[in-house]
């Protein structure tokens, strides 16, 4: 690969290319905008990539690979890191033998998310080094740097990226692929890897020592960039906010931080001394501003109104001008809708007609909240439909409790619905409960990815398949029904009302493929008759 090559890549594609060039042996993840394309592209480039049922499992698989001495990545959207937080905090203690890069794609402004949490706080809370790219070239370069940092300090690195970097295309000049990639090889290290308290206590101290060493290294690290300007204004920034800031204030001096945890406070203090006035320009929470101020370094932070939503050049101009007048409201576009002919429609029509209290979940089907369906009452996080529905059943007066239904998509059910089903069997409400799995044979919301219930792997090859009805029966649920939600069919409505009236635990699987992939599915199925799955 020649160094003069110029590729126009999205941030996600640049990360995937860097992962290939770094010789990453395994990528695991769960789909989630804006992170999804990283693994898809990594697979397309020939990398070994797999969808796990959820982010926690994905991170654990990647940890195993990195314990084995290989280079591994785990990819997820910001809220996915909440699911994966348990292993994250302790793998910071154990460290890794190979390289582990945990990619968290945050979504400031919530283009496609249920919250806009700022995952930079995870780096602080778990004690992990963190890098933040500002465009595709940096997405590529900082990935390679993250692998180096991970291997040098035997620590996972949190790679925090945002929607604008993931989904913008900018030019990348790649480097030649790595020629010497460490081979996986098992070395026993019980004190380092088995976190019983006696091992974890020294491990925590080791973690803090490593972070101190990284902080010292970061003082002169090439990952932070100093742009010397001609105006008295200094700007400290990170991520895509760097680009907006450079455009909004082309004459300002800028300290652009690439490794944003642990921070290079001496470098920051020197920068602040050199300029007359220093402003921190960052998207999301005032993470940098608060950390810097806590060290007694005087910087100005953006006004509270800019915590919300994405930054852009005009908003940065406002911050610099101290303009806190109300911003023009965003132009209302046309909201998304369930596709014409979407199988979810019939289900929500029935739920609306039966006046159910619908404990909903996340996926295309969340659009069932909009008119004409108006058939969703709650949506918190993936998998919550079951627990929330059960909590409602337990506490509402019986005549209301009997109307409660939990509705969950097939991919979401695989992700985090199973424990909820176990909860239902273990702590059954007095009025029973009705769960509907909307099985459209895909993860439609994020662009039609496979999951364990489709029986196909990330690259659409045949693999073992989880059969929901078998699973539910094995858990002891007696009323398990499979039904095809067809427009105009009364079968589904009848089934829901019988199930509600039964007062028992019922699972209805509404099975009909997403119409956008129906054709593609037939192609896969043709192949499936030729290829045999593995025996289990």
């Amino acid at each position, binding site marked *: 690969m020649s160094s003069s090559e110029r590729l126009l890549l999205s941030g996600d594609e640049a990360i995937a290319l860097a992962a290939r060039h770094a010789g990453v042996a395994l990528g695991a993840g769960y789909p989630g905008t804006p992170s999804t394309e990283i693994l898809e592209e990594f697979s397309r480039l020939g990398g070994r990539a797999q969808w796990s049922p959820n982010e926690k499992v994905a991170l654990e698989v990647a940890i195993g690979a990195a314990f084995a001495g290989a280079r591994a990545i785990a990819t997820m959207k910001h809220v996915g890191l909440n699911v994966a937080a348990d292993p994250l905090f302790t793998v910071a203690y154990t460290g890794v033998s190979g390289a582990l890069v945990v990619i968290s794609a945050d979504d400031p402004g919530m*283009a496609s998310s249920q919250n806009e949490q700022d995952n930079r706080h995870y780096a602080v809370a778990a004690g992990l080094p963190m890098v933040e790219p500002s*465009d595709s070239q940096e997405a590529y370069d900082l990935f390679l740097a993250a692998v180096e940092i991970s291997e040098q300090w035997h620590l996972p690195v949190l790679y925090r990226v945002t929607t604008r970097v993931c*989904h913008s*295309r900018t030019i990348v000049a790649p480097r030649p692929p790595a020629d010497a990639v460490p081979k996986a090889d098992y070395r026993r290290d019980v004190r380092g890897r088995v976190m019983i308290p006696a091992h974890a206590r020294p491990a925590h101290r080791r973690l803090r020592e490593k972070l101190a060493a990284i902080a010292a290294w970061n003082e002169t690290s090439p990952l932070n960039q100093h742009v010397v300007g001609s105006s008295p204004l200094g700007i400290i920034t990170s991520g*895509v906010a760097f680009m907006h800031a450079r*455009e909004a204030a*082309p004459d300002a001096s800028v300290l652009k931080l690439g490794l944003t945890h642990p921070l290079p406070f001496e470098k920051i203090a020197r920068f602040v001394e050199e300029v007359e006035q220093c402003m921190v320009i960052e998207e999301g929470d005032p993470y940098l501003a608060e950390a810097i101020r806590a060290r007694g370094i005087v910087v100005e932070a953006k006004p509270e109104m800019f915590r919300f939503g994405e930054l852009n050049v005009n908003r940065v101009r406002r911050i610099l001008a101290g303009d806190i007048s109300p911003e023009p409201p965003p132009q209302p576009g*046309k909201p998304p*809708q*369930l596709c014409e002919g979407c199988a979810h429609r019939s289900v929500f029509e029935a739920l609306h007609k039966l006046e159910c209290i619908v404990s909903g979940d996340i996926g295309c089907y969340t659009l069932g909240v909009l008119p004409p369906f108006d058939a969703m009452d709650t949506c918190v996080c993936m998998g919550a439909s079951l627990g929330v529905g059960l909590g409602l059943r337990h506490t509402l007066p019986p005549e209301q409790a009997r109307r409660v239904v939990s509705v969950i998509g097939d991919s979401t059910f695989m992700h985090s619905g199973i424990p909820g089903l176990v909860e239902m069997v273990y702590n059954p409400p007095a009025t029973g409960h009705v769960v509907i799995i909307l099985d459209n044979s895909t993860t439609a919301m994020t662009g039609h990815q496979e999951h364990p219930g489709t029986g196909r792997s990330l690259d659409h090859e045949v693999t073992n398949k989880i059969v929901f009805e078998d699973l539910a029966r094995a858990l002891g649920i007696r009323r398990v029904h499979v039904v095809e939600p067809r427009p105009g069919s009364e079968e589904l409505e009848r089934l829901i009302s019988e199930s509600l009236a039964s007062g028992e635990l019922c699972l209805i699987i509404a099975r009909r493929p997403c119409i956008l992939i129906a054709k593609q599915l037939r192609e896969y199925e043709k192949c499936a008759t030729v290829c045999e799955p593995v025996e289990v």
Partner: protein
Amino acid sequence: MSDSSVTNVVFGGLGGQGVLKASDILADAVVRAGFDVKKSELHGMSQRGGSVSSDVRFGTRVLSPMVPAGEADFLVILTADQVEPNRHVLRAEGKLILPDAVSVELLLNRKSLNVALLGVLSRQLPIAEEHWLAALRANLAEKLHAVNLQAFNLGRNSGKI
């Protein structure tokens, strides 16, 4: 204060109309012509038929990937009712390219309106025809080449702004 050496183009339409494809083709043509370029868009819920827009910025050096409101030199709209949600991006003297800039009934396939409007836009930009054609071929499946070349030429030769 916008950098005058940067050209800003915004595409707007609805999910499924080829907004992102059009911006991909423009960005590719621009790279071939040797410029720096950044292209930005929002995926996600917008796939379900909602509003979609995409920004392409090119010049000697591009910083932010998003076109600041009021700084677009060109706004290319694929369906008339998406003018209002996007109009604020255009600068005062910016050019609006509407779907009726080409005679839709002359298209071999109405789905290639996005490429026809790129043809209209192409007359306004400093990008040689060879780069446009190479970008079209690189970003579309081979079986779509003939239909889209027709659309591009229709827009380039007879489009009205």
